[in-house]
């Protein structure tokens, strides 16, 4: 049986990818951010999953305004890094797991979550930056990845409680797959940031820290927080944090906190990163 063993959350700021791709890790500004992931790179070597369900948002790369799926699932064998306007990131092709993804799609849809099935899609920094933060710069990614894109660009995104419930449905779906797979679920994006308007640059560290505390200890209550609070307190782009609730919903109600890191700033954004292990 497949099982979810751990969850990871991380911001996916594009400048992190650019810092890595352009060899800027020696600069103190970036070194401070990447230091928060040193532990994680060692941890994941010892806890290497077979498959990562990677919850992220597309940033107008695979999806233009022609089609905007609220929840999707990538069912292809592979996904190419997207050209976001400066050429694709120099990172390996992302290998999917078509058979497992098809199983998850069928199971989750039968649990009343109407996922959009995606058989061809490029993946942007939202998906590749988290892989870089956890694995560095390998010639090939050491895991298979099932992309789970969530719309958080066109308002409104799905609610926190809907995201939390999707996590629960994903867990059931994983556990009904016959193959013996070690699965992790990653929730990416956030934390507080605003990239537009005269309020750009907003950071709310106390709110972010409380969000992390509650994500660990009382996620079901946290899931009730309305969109308006995210926007007002954590910035218009801080609303990406609803995706962390999908990760959390897929874990057990009690989890072991393995790693917690928070840092301001990376470019315009507060960086948050967690590793949570499931209590089986």
């Amino acid at each position, binding site marked *: 049986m497949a099982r979810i063993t751990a969850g990871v959350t991380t911001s996916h700021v*594009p*400048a992190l990818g650019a810092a890595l791709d352009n060899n800027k890790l020696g600069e103190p500004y970036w070194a401070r951010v990447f230091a928060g992931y040193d532990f994680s790179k060692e941890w994941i070597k010892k806890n290497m999953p077979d498959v990562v369900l990677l919850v992220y948002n597309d*940033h*107008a*790369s695979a999806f*233009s*305004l*022609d089609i905007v799926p609220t929840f999707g699932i990538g069912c292809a064998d592979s996904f190419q890094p*997207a*050209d*976001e*306007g*400066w*050429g694709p990131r120099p990172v390996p092709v992302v290998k999917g797991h078509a058979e497992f993804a098809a199983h998850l799609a069928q199971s989750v849809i039968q649990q009343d979550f109407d996922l959009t099935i995606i058989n061809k899609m490029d993946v942007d920094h939202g998906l590749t930056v988290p892989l870089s933060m956890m694995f560095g710069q390998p010639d090939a990614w050491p895991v298979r990845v099932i992309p789970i894109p969530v719309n958080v*660009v*066109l*308002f*409104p995104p799905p609610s926190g409680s809907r995201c939390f419930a999707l996590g629960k449905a994903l867990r059931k779906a994983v556990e009904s797959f016959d193959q013996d797979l070690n699965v992790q679920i990653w929730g990416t994006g956030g934390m*507080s940031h*605003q*990239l*537009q*308007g*005269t*309020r*750009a*640059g*907003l*950071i*709310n*560290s106390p*709110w972010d820290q409380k969000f992390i505390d509650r994500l660990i200890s009382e996620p079901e209550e946290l899931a009730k927080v309305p*969109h*308006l609070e995210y*926007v*007002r*307190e954590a910035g*218009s*782009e801080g609303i990406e944090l609803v995706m962390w609730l999908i990760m959390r919903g897929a874990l057990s109600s009690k989890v072991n906190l393995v790693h917690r890191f928070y840092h*301001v*700033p990376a*470019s*315009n954004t*507060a960086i948050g990163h967690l590793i949570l292990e499931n209590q089986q």
Partner: protein
Amino acid sequence: MSLDKPYMDIPGTTIFDADQARRGYHLNQFCMSLMKAANRERFRADERAYLMEWPMTEEQREAVLARDWGLMVKLGGNVYFLSKLFSTDGKSFQYVAAQMTGSSQEDYAAMMLAGGRSPEGNRYIGEKK
């Protein structure tokens, strides 16, 4: 009944909702077209001519030509779409965010290093700082 928009009282913030997305459809789709290297070259060669191929408003075209990022957002642009335009220009998210706040990138970067813009006084329009 019109859409409920409880976020309209947040200062300095344009929420990219269904109305904004409709207003900015062609502006944003123009930006998407710059994900192809060949289109970037054509755009650079004659920006005005390239923009005329898109049925956006003249005000939107002028905002693009002037690289008035704040105005593009007000006219329905979304920053993730606009990123294709500023990437074509070789500019970063931080450069554009600074432009939208009216600061130099240097001052903006210093504000971020000092912990970012505080939410205090920035939650509601008209709120006392």
